């Protein structure tokens, strides 16, 4: 008789192995899916995972797509480590994009580096403001931050929709729901000539570095980890729970807002209704696959970005619907949660005692 048995101590090895197992299971699931859809699984695999990054432009696109994921995931990880569950990064990203776009449009046809700097600041503050709503409600009224932050995503989506249909709509845009295309001074400089990879990528790498130092070297990061592992111990030690809720939500919100800014000032060059590509939700999966570790976030973001690119290729070459990316993301998360069971449990063959 097979049975699950609690391990005496959580398995360190399994907690790192589990994301890899999840990735392998996701790939197997993908192959089965392709077969079931009547596609050649090997060809499907190549289209999804090899072709998108088979040339240097593809690789630059991979890093471009990974940039917002890294930014958001590191910001969220800071809060997740303290069990502050900000599920609304998608909305905070939109809020940051709106704020940055407002700056860009205000300074339309203006010159100077201050525009971009102000956009970065506005983006981060926009995201933080949006995240401060669940933070305030939780610290003041003990509301559930998961629900509040998630519901605010839909508010933000409606808000941006209203803005691009109204105040922010391009006056010369034939009533398309989108803003003007930003001027050159309101766009992030390109890092590698001939690609779309821009300065935001170096923001992301810096954010990972700062996040690493915060999490593993700073006392504030230690306090947040204590709160995540054992709430009563944090209270006993005298760490302020409210401060951690604020830090957790504002870091996630600020980074998501910055990601929003990097989208409108980067590959999009304007703000539209579809300013986010579900990055705010995908980054949650990234953070968990990465075990909330900054180095892990770097690689998990690349993997997730590959799923985005692969999904686009699959639409093109395999005539599969665009939701194929979501299916892969979903499989990854599901398999991760499944194999995480084995961090605390192991399977034993147990004979019944006669």
């Amino acid at each position, binding site marked *: 008789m097979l049975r699950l*048995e*609690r*391990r*005496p*101590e*959580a398995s360190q090895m399994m907690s790192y192995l589990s994301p890899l197992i999840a990735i392998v299971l996701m790939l197997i699931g993908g192959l089965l899916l392709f077969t079931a859809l009547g596609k050649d699984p090997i060809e499907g695999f190549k289209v999804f995972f090899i072709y998108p990054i088979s040339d240097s432009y593809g690789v630059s696109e991979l890093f471009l797509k990974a940039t917002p994921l890294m930014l958001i995931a590191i910001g969220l990880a800071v809060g997740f480590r303290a069990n502050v569950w900000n599920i609304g990064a998608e909305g905070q990203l939109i809020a940051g994009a709106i704020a940055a776009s407002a700056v860009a449009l205000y300074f339309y046809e203006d010159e100077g580096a201050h525009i971009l700097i102000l956009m970065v600041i506005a983006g981060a503050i926009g995201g933080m403001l949006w995240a401060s709503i669940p933070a305030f409600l939780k610290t003041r009224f003990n509301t559930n931050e998961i629900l509040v932050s998630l519901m605010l995503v839909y508010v933000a989506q409606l808000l941006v929709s209203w803005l691009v249909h109204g105040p922010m709509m391009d006056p010369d845009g034939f009533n398309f729901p989108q803003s003007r295309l930003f001027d050159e001074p309101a766009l992030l400089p390109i890092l590698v000539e001939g690609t779309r990879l821009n300065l935001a990528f170096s923001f992301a790498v810096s954010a990972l570095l700062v996040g690493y130092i915060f999490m593993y*070297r*700073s*006392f*504030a990061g*230690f306090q947040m*980890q*204590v709160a995540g*592992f*054992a709430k*009563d*111990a944090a*209270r*006993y*030690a*005298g*760490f*302020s729970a409210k401060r951690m809720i604020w830090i957790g939500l504002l870091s996630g919100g600020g980074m998501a807002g910055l990601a929003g800014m990097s989208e409108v000032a980067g590959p999009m060059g304007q703000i539209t209704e579809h300013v986010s590509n579900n990055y705010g939700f995908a980054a949650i999966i990234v953070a968990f696959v990465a075990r909330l570790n900054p180095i892990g976030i770097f690689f998990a973001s690349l993997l997730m970005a590959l799923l985005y690119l692969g999904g686009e290729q699959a639409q093109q070459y395999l005539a599969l619907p665009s939701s194929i990316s979501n299916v892969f993301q979903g499989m990854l998360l599901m398999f991760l949660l499944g194999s995480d069971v084995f961090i605390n449990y192991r399977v034993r063959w147990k004979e019944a*005692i006669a």
Partner: protein
Amino acid sequence: MTSAANGDQTLRLELNGITKIYPSVIANEDVSLSVKRGEIHAVLGENGAGKSTLMKMIYGVTHPDAGQMKWEGEPVHVENPAHARSLGIGMVFQHFSLFETLNVVENVALALPGNPDLNELASQITEVSNRYGLPVDPGRLVHALSVGERQRVEIIRCLLQNPKLLIMDEPTSVLTPQAVRKLFDTLRQLAEEGCSILYISHKLDEIQELCHVATVLRDGKVTGHCIPAEETPKSMASLMIGKELPVPERGEPAELGEIRLQLNSLSKSSDDPFGTDLKAIDIEVRSGEILGIAGVSGNGQQELLYALSGEELVDNADAIHVCGKASGRDMPGQRRLLGMGFVPEERLGRGAVPRMSLTENALLTAYHADMLRLGMIQFERISAFARKCIEDFNVKCGGEDHAANSLSGGNLQKFIMGREILLAPKLLVVAQPTWGVDVGAAAFIRQRLIDLRDQGTAILVISEELEELFEISDRIAVIADGRLSPAKMLADTSIDEIGVWMSGMWETPAAAGVDANA
């Protein structure tokens, strides 16, 4: 001796080579034990020696991996507690299994087979409780009962099924000395009627007073048998821990200094519907003294400790003064900065973070002892501190990098006590300082507390172990139902008096007028 057991030669219970292996630990190894009719048989051993596991196997809660059990001469495999009860085995657990929102009869009915008539059952309960001197009102709700009364309900529940063997797991840890004596009378009466009793305890004086024979367990193995009446507590202790028992040295009370902790009529209602409200508690602890607070658990100790540490704030800042500052509204971190150290009752999850290393757990409260620079952790300093803690307090562990939850409860307790003591606080508040540590380590910890007092720290100890409080305290007070008795100098009181006070009765003429700060 085993007078009641002489008539019949058949053993009531016989265990042969019982072994139980858990994933990380061998709980019992090759344990053999036999219990005669009408015998009160002690199973003696320290925390973690495997006593409770053995009893759970007899009661069918878990099953042995090897070995044989015989019941009245017949081999038997106890499937589950219901099966055990049908054989005539009853068990009173250390932690009660009663539904607080139901009344006594309903709780008893739940444990009985079938669908008993509640009125009839109530009269049976009254009958049994009269016969064995276990007064309990069948109609009362359990949450309104005292701990001693709850235990009576558990015992009555067992007795209603006319058990032939009654297992009592650490029954006295929650009782006042007077209630213990009553319980012993009941148990003796049962034994005389032929019921066998397995009595689990680590309290040597009780075993000596009550039990006919004793089996000693250490590290899951039987290390000896003895007849308690022929032993001394000291000789049984060395059987139990495998070495001689050290006794702490206590000098004369030190010169009393400034007031380090002052509670001014602290009242606080509990958030927990079954918690205890604190009622106008006055405490004064000076530099260089140890104030002990005795009491049966659940009488407001938890609530008092939360209020002292700052984990729960009180409305009136003036109600609590820490080192001269009104601190009732201060967070725990602020109180630590004033010089207060604190050891909570729960080690894992409150006093320490289970998944974090001992180094990180040292940082948990040592952070203000020059362990940070510009908000960054100085890892070398903190791991040096953790190493010192491990060495000084003889913490058995794999090293300072190992997680707190890899330590045994006693060793973690030593680490936490060490951490707080090494921080040399001006005021130290300790709950159950020696919970779960072996007898030798307990003596060592008590000695360190006394040394700390001699260096001028004010210490408040809340403990359920009266012997411990009498060993280390300069003054002693009792908490009962959220009220605190006046504190008495140790020389002016006795275990008996404190025992009476533990049931809340101190407003006798003898107690009135005693100067709390003599």
